[in-house]
């Protein structure tokens, strides 16, 4: 290890340590605090807390509502990640082609990602309003009636998935598009010489070359979508009849509305644990080291 001898090196070390410490404080303290809260029974953040050990976990894990919320979270995450990946990669491949106005279209493609979530949610709510929504009225005009966007559990899940996909697909597009620029053009030229078509070039050159980037994108999208709270809360608040209530909404409801701070913290901690396990399993099958081996 390089020793820090000069003044500049020492400043660098100090800044590095400060950043790490700051990050740890911002991440670890809330996590540990949530874990701490989950071991107590408390009706609010100002009420007297009573030590109950793992009782909150036992209670939460014994509730069918927890497992239902867990399943809903998995379904929501899988659907949104799959759609974001497929659409994001397709858009990236399109935007990688030369065409007139490409820089402008590339700029516009990221627009949904720049919009605040609350704006997206309000826009979707207005579009799908049962009485005055544009899409509702159009649906009626084309003869399929007024869909029960937020009343039917399946359609409500569809709405939150579509809103999420519309908002966060540009992240995949931009990431994949940037990675595409790193693939040597000579590989494609060589493949063309070997008469490989576009599909073959995509599967045998693009995807293998960009696997490390895909691993990171899938990882990030998994974490974000599994923990995604704002868009669902703003659109459906977990309804109808709990059809879109996943673990983050359940944790929020328990801790901040249903006078069960410990239970809410237990749900949040369990959610954190599940996600951590999923990430470990994911890295076991798709280790990032592959990139180093390839390069």
């Amino acid at each position, binding site marked *: 290890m390089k020793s820090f001898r000069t003044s500049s090196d020492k400043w660098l070390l100090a800044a590095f340590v400060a950043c790490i410490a700051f990050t740890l404080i911002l991440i670890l303290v809330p996590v540990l605090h949530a874990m701490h809260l989950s071991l107590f029974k408390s*009706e*609010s*953040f*100002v*009420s*007297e807390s009573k030590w109950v050990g793992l009782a909150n976990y036992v209670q939460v894990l014994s509730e069918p509502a927890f497992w239902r919320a867990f399943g809903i979270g998995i379904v929501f995450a899988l659907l949104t990640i799959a759609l974001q990946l497929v659409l994001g990669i397709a858009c990236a491949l399109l935007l990688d082609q030369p065409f007139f106005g490409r820089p402008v279209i590339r700029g516009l493609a990221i627009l949904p990602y720049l919009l605040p979530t609350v704006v997206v949610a309000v826009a979707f*709510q207005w579009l*799908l*309003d*049962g*009485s005055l*929504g544009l899409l*509702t009225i159009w649906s009626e005009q084309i003869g399929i009636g*007024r869909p*029960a*966007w*937020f*009343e*039917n559990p399946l359609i409500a899940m569809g709405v939150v998935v579509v809103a999420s996909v519309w908002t966060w697909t540009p992240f995949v597009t931009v990431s994949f598009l940037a990675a595409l620029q790193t693939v040597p053009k000579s590989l494609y030229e060589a493949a063309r010489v070997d008469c490989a078509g576009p599909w073959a070039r995509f599967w045998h050159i693009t995807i293998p070359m960009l696997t490390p980037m895909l691993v990171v994108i899938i990882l990030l999208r998994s974490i974000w979508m599994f923990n995604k709270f704002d868009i669902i809360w703003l659109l459906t*608040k*977990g*309804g*109808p*009849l*709990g059809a879109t209530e996943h673990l983050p909404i359940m944790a929020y*409801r328990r801790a*901040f*509305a*249903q*006078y069960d701070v410990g239970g809410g913290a237990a749900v949040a901690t369990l959610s954190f644990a599940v996600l951590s396990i999923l990430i470990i399993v994911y890295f076991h099958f798709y280790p990032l080291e592959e990139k180093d081996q390839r390069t």
Partner: protein
Amino acid sequence: MKNTEFNRRDVLKTAVAGATLALTGAPAVHAQQKSIRFLNAEPGRESVRVLRVAAAEYEKQTGIKVIIDTVPPDDAFSKTQASIAAGTPYDISTLAFAGHVLLLAEAGKLVPITKLVSKYQWGPRILFPIKGENYWYPYDYNFCWMYYRKDLYKQKGLKVPTTWDQMQENAKILTGDGKFGVSLPLGANAATQWMSLGNMWAEGVSMLDDNFKLILDNAQMKPKVIAYLEYMKKLSPSMPQGMTQALFGTVLGQYSGGQIAHAPYAGRLMEVLEDKAPALVADTGFFMYPDSAGKAQAVNHGYDGWVILNTPMRDESVKFMEWFTDRHYINFLHSAPLHFQPPRMDIYDDPRWRAHPLIEKHADLVAFMKSLLTRNDVIIKSIDTEGPTIDLRPPKMFETFAICDALQNVMIKGMPAPEALEIMSAKYRTVLG
């Protein structure tokens, strides 16, 4: 000649002295300034203005600064809790939920203001004393009743409904051509529990007995709850779509936009009509939620009030509240003249309050609102205040939104009402313990 240059030691000394002063002196300076931090949860422009004017006047008279922070009503308790947890609690806060008052009082965070409250006579079901002490100063009853379009009634030759059948029939007749008979929210939220349960209360439903035991599904209540759920299902064809998303503003917009013929709300609806749809003002009437047989009427209540927190400024806060409720209470009520329904009975006879142009203009509505407090045949209920005394269990029931689920199960999923009642009761029992 004296050397005036700072050396490193001087700099260190100065820094240490400064830090010491900041740590020890700052609170003293803060205390000398005597500021009261007031968390307001009425974000209306006029309400904020009234509070700021009062704060400026109080500072001028006493030298004590009153800092007004404003948050949306739903955020008031969270912000109050956060301020306590952060060690910088507000001195006065606004709360809109009896359970929150109870939680803070039981945690020793509130100052009893029984002496202040006892100066006046109050309406029923509003003070919620805790162990004989009053901890909050209410300023609004937030009753919810039904409004209807008098002009449409006249056109169709309808009468104000006194039974569920009449209401259903009126709503059905007034539905068509893109217009709907009635709008009752159905989402799992507070709007539904404020606006859509009045008929159930009118039917004589109680959720808890005197021991806080759930009686919703006992032999006496079960038929009433089932009848209510089935009545709501019959009403649903007369409602606009998307009622699970409907919130307070939705209903205001639907009625003021002429889309619906009946709307549940408090005085705010008339204020909105005065502002946005004045043509509808004269064509709007009101009535209480009827029961099925035409024998009883009910309103759902909410409530808002101020609490004084147990801070080093508590004595000053009590003095401020004494002064404010004496000098500016009516001004504050005037900031939403028809919506803030006074819980203090003396206000109704106070010429200063009655002098507001909207209160004068809507004397019939104001008389109706007062009658809700003086008539002894009016049922006043809300889930969170069920039971013999104020207790945390009913607010917990309120937050499960189990009755909203029952409405959705019956009206959207087509579940038989008895089954929906069973599920609802089971959910309530999980929080009642």
